[in-house]
């Protein structure tokens, strides 16, 4: 991303506030995400005119109306291709996509995997409330199996997606997970997502207080969160637990939860998180960790360097222009086979 470097960002969160009212339900997890983003964006060092928020359709996708940047509230599922067009048209823009679990993985599933595969530089925030909020409570592609919803009165019989697995399967270079109850974590991760060159996907575990209240409670609840979450940081050991007594090791081709000081395990045995490792085996395992066997991984799980689509595209454009003798339309019109008819070629 070629950011404008001669611009000193003196933006504050207030710069991104709009006068119009935020219309999410009281108590909706999205409010906290919005304020974390307003806090994060000024710290990405991007000129405010260069920030664009694009969304699909859903409760979460109302987001662009609540932040004072360029914004595009588009079609259900189509935020990724719209954002793609914006980024390719002007690579200097800092492009954010805000989407829901249905928006990105049901109707927009195809676009989601392809934008990641291409590695176009943008940050995709999935507000995963594991339900269709805007349409009032039908199961989504991330709804846990067995859930009773308006369209699954006997319990959902579908196997849910894990967004991180899709990202890995799409050769994703950046995946992070955060919860809507941790503003500090959200802000840190959002900034890193924006600074990462390439497609970065952040799954936000968001609570829908109306149609799926407490769906993430077993991860985010005050009394369980220390045991049921692990906040991963690059270069630091994978330790969690109230007393920082638990950790992860890799044994017999799988991750394993261990207790430091027990069974001969010392702190040195605990895995150090390497988010930049190009081999995705460990990342994949981390992404899949779930209750009750494992804590759920939070933070930046994977962040590796990979060629960025629009940079390669603009290199090709520049190179083609330099190389070709056809520099303008008149050149093109007269190129190749042309025929002078009833005139001498003088």
């Amino acid at each position, binding site marked *: 991303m070629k950011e404008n470097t001669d611009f000193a960002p003196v933006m504050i969160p207030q710069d991104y506030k709009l006068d*119009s009212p935020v219309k999410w339900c009281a108590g909706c997890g999205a409010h906290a995400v919005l304020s974390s983003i307003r806090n994060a964006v000024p710290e990405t060092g991007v000129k*405010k*005119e*260069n920030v*664009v928020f*694009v969304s699909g*359709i859903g409760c979460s996708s109302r987001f*662009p*109306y609540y932040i*004072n*940047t*360029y*914004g*595009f*509230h*588009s*079609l259900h599922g*189509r935020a*990724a*291709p*719209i*954002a*793609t*067009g*914006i*980024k*390719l*048209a*002007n690579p*200097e*823009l800092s492009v954010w996509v805000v989407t829901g679990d249905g928006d990105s993985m049901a109707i927009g599933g*195809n*676009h989601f995997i*392809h934008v990641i595969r291409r590695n176009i530089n943008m940050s995709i925030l999935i507000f995963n409330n594991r339900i269709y909020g805007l349409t009032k409570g039908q199961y989504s592609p991330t709804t846990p199996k067995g859930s009773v919803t308006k369209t699954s009165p006997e319990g959902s019989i579908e196997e849910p997606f894990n967004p991180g697995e899709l990202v890995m399967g799409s050769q994703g270079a950046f995946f992070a997970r955060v919860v809507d109850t941790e503003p500090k974590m959200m802000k840190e991760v959002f900034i890193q997502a924006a600074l990462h060159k390439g497609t970065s996907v952040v799954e936000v575990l968001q609570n829908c207080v109306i149609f799926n209240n407490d769906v993430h409670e077993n991860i985010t609840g005050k009394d369980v969160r220390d045991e049921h979450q692990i906040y991963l940081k690059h270069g630091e050991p994978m330790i969690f637990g109230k007393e920082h007594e638990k950790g992860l090791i890799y044994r017999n081709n799988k991750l394993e939860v261990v207790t430091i000081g027990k069974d001969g395990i010392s702190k040195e045995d605990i895995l150090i998180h390497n988010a930049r490792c190009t081999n995705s085996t460990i990342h994949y395992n981390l992404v899949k960790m779930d209750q009750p066997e494992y804590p759920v991984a939070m933070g930046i799980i994977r962040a590796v360097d990979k060629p960025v689509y629009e940079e390669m*595209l603009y290199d*090709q*454009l520049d190179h*083609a*222009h330099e*190389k*070709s003798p*056809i*520099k*303008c*339309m*008149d050149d*093109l*019109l*007269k190129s*190749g*086979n*042309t*025929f*002078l*008819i*009833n*005139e001498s070629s003088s």
Partner: protein
Amino acid sequence: MSKNPRIIELEDVVVKFAGDSGDGMQLTGSQFSDTSAFVGNDLSTFPDYPSEIRAPQGTVAGVSGYQVHIGHKDVTTPGDLADVLVAMNPAALKTNMKWLKPGATVIIDIDNFDQKNYKKAEYIEDPLNDGSLEGYNIVKAPITSLTRSTVKEFGLDAKTADKTKNQFVAGILFWLFNRDLTIGENFIQKKFKKNADLVNANIAVLRGGYNYAETIEAMSTTFLVNPAKNKKGLFRNITGNIATAWGLLAASEKSGCGLFLGSYPITPATEVLQELAGRKHLGAITFQAEDEIAGICSAIGASFTGKLAVTSTSGPGLALKGEAIGLAVITELPIVIVNVQRGGPSTGLPTKTEQADLLQALYGRSGESPVIVVAATTPANCFSFAYEAAKLSLEHMTPVILLTDGYLANGSELWHIPEMKDMPEIHPPKVKDNHEGYMPYIRKPENLARMWAVPGQEGMRHRVGGLEKADKTGEVSHDPYNHQIMVGLRQEKVDRVANYIADQEILGEKDADLLVIGWGGTYGALYSAVKELQHEGRSISLAQFSYINPLPKNTEEVLKYAKSRVICELNLGQFAMYLRSKFPQYEYKQYNKVQGLPFMISELKAKFIDILENKGK
């Protein structure tokens, strides 16, 4: 070279090349049309592909054709029936017999006319001996074997050697049309310049074909078509798809809005994407999306960011893009949707032509969703209408659907090369940074186009989206009266485009006994049929529409005075339905064809004469 036996000067000639998909007939045909242009003939071409890439060799399903119509007189269609047919195998002969003029010259590759190939072509009897070729001038040329023996000395592998067969055919035609062989040799030099062996082999085969034709006695007469009498200047031979791509490039250069094409391959529109993908040197950005929807959505994103945004497709793809076109309508962002029509519904006839997407283009979206619809009328004027579509879209801030069709897209004709300085100016309503009081839905009073600010501009941050927006501010609004105002404004904006487009022309008298009405790609055939009947003294005229929505302001005038009217289209009557809804006071007859084929001049003439002579009915 010895004198040709008997030379007949012709006003025009239709030559059809037909063979297996692998025989290189498209190449032979385009080489023939290039030489024709080189000697100054007017021309029109039409390829005829099977939809299978390589259907079993020698079968009827695998026949690929290429028709070339050249003329000293003006040529406006690839011609109804062929004067000369080159058939590389029995299947090619079988498929094309019904499109031959009486007495036509038929050149066959006799090497392929054996029991094995008769069987593949499902001939019950040997066509060479069952009398079916009576009345035609049959030239049984051993094309394959003579080609092979000619190239022997060049040491080519069998496959490459057989590929030079088309030069043998070319050689025969050089002789048949009394053309200077050096033109063909120069073409070969240019084409294979990197490979001396190929140059020599191809030239040897070309000469082989020429010498063969000269020595055999089957062709006692040869033809001469003099340079086009009504053409003068610098020309090129161009297909509709390439002309479309170039028209978009030209509009991009003129408007200063970089070109962005988001698209997904689909026959017969793919070439627009392919051509522009190769034009990065002119700054064109192409994005081959994961599907049709992503194609148009990426274009809408690029439009939001200030580009000349385009998506290209065919009918099934247009259906997928419907929702996104609605988004461009409500956000009032410019975008050109190129729809190259093919036979439908569904996958239908992918490689064949039809005009049955008209109503889809006009109405195929949710809500009140007006867009500008224009239609190109000839392969070359796809350039002008692509340019015009882009100009209208950018200046009026609205989606434009450009309708072409398989016939225009793959067909070609001679095109008088324009100069960019003569192309009309394009002024999109872009605003400067920090424009005071900017609101995204403030409009230009004269044409109601909204003012266009794009991300990156200082002091212009704003949001657009698919929810209904308040007049001027663009804030989300569910107010009932506001919705009525906005629906009205979007409609009025498109209606007012009528003030900016050309009047509808009539070829002939406006009070003719019969006014023929067509639209888009049927122009060539309708023009020829009407012209010929006018020459025969009939009172008949033609109005060929290119501006469909809105219609030109003088449309009522055009329709009013005719004593009868017939609407001709390659569908079941979609334009007829449209005109009846706009001008119900007139009576319209219809002539409709849905065979995946263009109109033939002869069938049109017969129909028109029938109407003229049975006026009362």
